[in-house]
């Protein structure tokens, strides 16, 4: 919230321009983003995003919580891909602890992560198309998203704030019928993607609004810290799932969609292809799901099963100690990054050897991606700002934290 008082100061001789305020209450800004635009007629001279309206001090709150209590907070920073944030956080803590995770838990994490990516991309596609004026796609996307949310509810009891992952594994065994439901979904989902593409990809109006609009070169994208589809849409071939694998991603086969054009359409194509690839990963995860435990064998860190807790004294003691005192994590620091639907989501955690993190920093993909907005829009038309904002897929909860 930096520019409440002076909006960009106009230099003498610039009296042709005017300042237009967009947001924070604007339906196409996907939350509470305020954009200050200096315009000359219909052309943008300068663009300045103003963020911070949703700042809740999550990083500060984390410092006052036990390690296991931070997991629900991580859901809330990016409410469209809670599992990705859960995963990134627990991977970072497990790296600090040096904990080995059983294969089944890793595969479940991959499965849930790809469902989360589908969920997040569906919301993006629906709202992005709606911003540009294609209202039907929104309803189609939310139809499939509803099914994904129901699956989340099955495994975790929550539709959005799932908190399904735990340090050392996942919270619960998925219930009976869950895998069948996912298999069913993965079976018909590619047809649904065809449906969205029928509506948009070849549509001349969609093409006119997106092709050649808000172009970002590869050099600019790297220099401005863009990641994820925003970077791959500009032709830089990097995906952390493939290039720096975590949680058994090296065992899955998938393509990384890259486009050279760098415009809104290129980013759209990357994400739509990712929907198909994610669906493929979901199918592989279902087919190859290993048997075995879903939690690591680390009694002082992982909560015991409810049944054991009620029958065995030792488990009860561990349970009591973890809940009341937390678990100590050896001193040190780690940076763990995962490929979230929006780009590189990173957690930097510093431990001082106690049961509470000394510092938790979230490297948010949108926060860096938002910096590309000025580069995309300056010198172009006012109407394209909405398309550009949609194409970088921002979530303000993650930007402001």
């Amino acid at each position, binding site marked *: *919230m930096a520019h409440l008082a002076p909006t960009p100061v106009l230099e003498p001789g610039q009296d042709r321009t005017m300042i237009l305020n967009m947001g924070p209450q604007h339906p196409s800004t996907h939350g509470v983003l305020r954009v200050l635009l200096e315009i000359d007629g219909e052309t943008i001279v300068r663009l300045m995003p103003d963020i911070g309206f949703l700042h809740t001090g999550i990083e500060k709150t984390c410092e006052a919580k036990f390690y296991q209590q931070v997991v629900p907070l991580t859901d809330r920073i990016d409410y469209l891909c809670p599992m990705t944030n859960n995963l990134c956080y627990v991977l970072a803590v497990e790296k600090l602890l040096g904990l080995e995770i059983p294969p089944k838990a890793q595969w479940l994490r991959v499965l849930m992560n790809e469902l989360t990516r589908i969920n997040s991309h569906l919301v993006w596609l629906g709202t992005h198309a709606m911003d540009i004026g294609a209202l039907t796609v929104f309803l189609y996307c939310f139809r499939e998203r509803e099914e994904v949310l129901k699956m989340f509810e099955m495994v975790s009891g929550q539709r959005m704030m799932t908190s399904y992952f735990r340090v050392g594994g996942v919270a619960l065994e998925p219930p009976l019928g869950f895998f069948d439901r996912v298999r069913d979904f993965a079976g018909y989902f590619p047809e649904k993607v065809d449906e969205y593409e029928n509506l948009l990809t070849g549509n001349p109006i969609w093409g006119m609004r997106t092709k050649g609009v808000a172009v970002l070169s590869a050099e600019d994208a790297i220099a401005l810290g863009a990641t994820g589809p925003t970077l791959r849409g500009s032709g830089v071939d990097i995906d952390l799932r493939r290039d720096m694998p975590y949680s058994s991603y090296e065992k899955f086969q998938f393509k990384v969609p890259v486009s050279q054009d760098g415009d809104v359409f290129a980013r759209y194509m990357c994400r739509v292809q990712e929907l198909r690839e994610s669906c493929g990963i979901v199918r592989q995860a279902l087919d190859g799901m290993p048997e075995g435990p879903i939690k690591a064998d680390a009694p002082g860190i992982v909560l015991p099963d409810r049944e054991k807790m009620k029958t065995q004294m030792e488990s009860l003691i561990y349970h009591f100690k973890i809940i009341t005192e937390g678990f100590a994590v050896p001193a*040190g620091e780690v940076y763990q990054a995962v490929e979230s639907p929006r780009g590189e989501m990173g957690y930097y955690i510093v431990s001082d050897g106690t049961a509470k993190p000394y510092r938790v920093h979230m*490297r948010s993909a949108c*926060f860096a991606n938002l910096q590309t907005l000025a580069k995309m829009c300056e010198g172009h038309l006012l109407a394209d700002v909405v398309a550009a904002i949609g194409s970088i897929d921002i979530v303000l909860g993650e930007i402001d934290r």
Partner: protein
Amino acid sequence: MALAPAITDIEQLKNHPAVALLVAWNPQAVQGVKFDREEMTIYLDRSAIREACALLKEDPACPFNFLADVTCVDWYPSEPRFEVVYHLLSIPKKERVRLKVKLDSGSPVVESLTSIWPGANYFEREVFDLFGVRFTGHPYLRRIMMPEDWEGHPLRKDYPVEGYR
């Protein structure tokens, strides 16, 4: 899986491209190294950070061309109080390195990296806003999360979690 102890001997770590490059460039600037949990940390002198980053970015063998993150850790009440932490990524070589600069509480000032990576802009503004560390040469160093008239820097350790009442 037991944790391996951290390696801090610079001679053992010379194989790492970033360490080799920086030691060959200016051994005085490298104050220490640490290899812990498969991650490389290099402690740099405050005055060397911008040139070191420019050098790492252009390294032909392993260009660390992407600035992934800038953040800060407050070690109040010990001195030097602040550690500014940079995470660099090499997109061609898929290699990461962490650079650290220690700043004392008297003058928490360090050179800005915005001339090398314009993307450092928001990250440095965030560190300035929440920790009160200043970056010289930054084009627009103003609060980004907190309101303009906010007093104090919330992520400092002497700032209460529930805020001032």
